[in-house]
């Protein structure tokens, strides 16, 4: 990259401009990725942190898709599930929205009801107690032993467990025995949580129990808020990536056309096209990596600063991954532009072509 490095230094202004565009695009992409992950976790963390490996829901009415909030297990579904081949454990998880009274006010929460003896219930859940999420405890200054009210009933906070939220609301685990008194009939839903091992056959299981089962990770799209947000945010990311490829392609097209006389001279001297292409690709890579890393670092800094008030995840998957993607897609754009090096005819270096 002998020539690339010197061209970068010589045409500082132009490359700085392009670099700034890459910084801004990567800033946007990484912010959006962090936000997508943050919002996603707010919708799904209670599900992704469930024990077991599969979830089963009742089949939706024709024309509707699977949904956590409209699944209703039939009586005996748990017992039937436990009898199936390859099922190590099965438990019912009940879900409802409710207001939780803390001190004098109401806090919106998602109630998860489970039999304290079942494998799905969090450690510490006992009769007349609840287990709440870190976030709820922190925001409402609750600690173990405090009292909260749900639908007029009093519960003691037995334990505070993990980052657990569902559909943007903190999760409060309640004992299944109290479910009927807490939640009005029909205002709730229920799903099966399964722990499976070898011999489990999803088709046979679904047929025998009358449900749709899937890996827990695949069930997230059945959380209403998640699928709506995730789809549009992901589309925005994809569009930004596409824009960056176009912008970089346009820049390198103009740049390559501008240096056609230099390329013709180098080819006349005996440079092979591949040598020149490699050099130009190196230039694009430097620009993308430097601009992208700067934008990513900025986004990560901003994300860390606002992390308390805005759902924003800063980790490798929300920084390094989009950065690498951006660089790869940018390189595709650059390569499409740089391809034209092969069409430069060295004969134009002769005569008064300049």
């Amino acid at each position, binding site marked *: 990259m*002998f*020539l690339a490095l010197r061209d970068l230094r010589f045409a500082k202004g132009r490359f700085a401009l392009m670099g700034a565009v890459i910084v801004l695009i990567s800033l946007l992409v990484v912010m959006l990725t962090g936000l997508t992950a943050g919002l996603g976790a707010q919708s799904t963390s209670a599900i992704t942190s469930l024990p077991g490996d599969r979830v089963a829901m009742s089949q939706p009415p024709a024309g509707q898709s699977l949904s956590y909030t409209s699944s209703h297990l039939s009586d005996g579904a748990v017992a039937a599930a436990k009898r199936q081949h390859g099922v190590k454990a099965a438990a019912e998880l009940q879900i409802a929205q409710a207001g939780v009274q803390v001190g004098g006010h109401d806090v919106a929460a998602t109630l998860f009801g489970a039999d304290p003896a079942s494998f799905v219930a969090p450690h510490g859940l006992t009769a007349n107690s609840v287990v709440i999420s870190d976030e709820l405890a922190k925001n409402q200054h609750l600690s173990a032993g405090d009292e909260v009210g749900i639908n007029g009933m009093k519960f003691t906070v037995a334990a505070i467990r993990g980052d657990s939220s569902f559909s943007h609301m903190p999760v409060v685990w309640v004992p299944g025995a109290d479910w009927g008194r807490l939640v009005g009939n029909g205002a709730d839903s229920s799903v099966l949580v399964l722990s499976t091992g070898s011999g489990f056959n999803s088709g046979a299981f679904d047929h025998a129990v009358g449900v749709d089962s899937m890996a827990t990770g695949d069930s997230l799209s059945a959380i209403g808020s998640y699928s709506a947000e995730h789809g549009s945010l992901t589309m925005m990311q994809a569009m930004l990536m596409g824009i960056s490829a176009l912008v970089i392609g346009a820049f390198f097209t103009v740049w390559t056309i501008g240096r056609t006389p*230099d390329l013709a001279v180098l080819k006349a001297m*005996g*440079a092979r096209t591949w040598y020149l292409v490699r050099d130009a690709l190196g230039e694009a890579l430097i620009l993308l990596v430097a601009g992208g890393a700067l934008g990513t670092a900025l986004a990560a800094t901003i994300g860390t600063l606002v992390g308390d008030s805005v759902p924003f995840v800063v980790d490798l998957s929300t920084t390094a991954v989009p950065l690498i993607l951006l660089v790869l897609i940018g390189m595709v754009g650059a390569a499409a532009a740089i391809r034209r090096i092969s069409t430069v005819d060295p004969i134009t270096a002769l005569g*008064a072509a*300049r």
Partner: protein
Amino acid sequence: MTAALTLTDITVTYPDGGRTLTALDNISLEVQPGETIAVVGPSGSGKSSLLAVAGLLLTPNSGRIEIAGEDVTQLSRSAASQVRLAQLGLVFQQSNLISSLTAREQLEMAARLRGEKGRAVRQRADELLDAVGLADAAGRRPHQLSGGQRQRVGIARALMNDPTLLLVDEPTSALDHERGQDIIRLITRVTDDRGIGTVVVTHDMGVLEHAKRLLTLEDGQLSHSYAGGHGG
């Protein structure tokens, strides 16, 4: 002695509207090592076409090209690049230096195209810049050099890979008479010193007093018009 360049019966035509234009009409030419040949002709007479054929940048319609005794008439593009790297030095009309590179780097670039780099290359570049009278200008970029200096860098660059054949395209066209003469003297001197075969094409009759042989090109026809004022 093997000729640096032998052109035999070279014809080049271009499509010209519905007809064809014959830029080189059955031209033959031989250049021996250490010999500077000047090809003089008016604009449009075919000088650049002649250089393009000798530089393997243009495949003639017919005829045969030999460089250092090797038939190089029908080479693939990459094989032609290879021959240019190994055997040819090209000096362009406006020197055609690369704007982002210093004088020394212009020469290093030529070596890098052959995969050579490092201290020995830089040292050789400095020696060549010294030989063309530019020892002090090694760190300057083209825009910091005068027209004559740029042309000298172009000559030094063409010598960087030790060519058998030096092809020079209108080297004086951007220079005043005196500086043009200096450049022609420099070219004949390095040709002599290094045993290179050199073809200079120009419409500048001022090269006359320095070239060993002078050929006139007119309407694609080459005529032998003058031999040997130069003592070398």
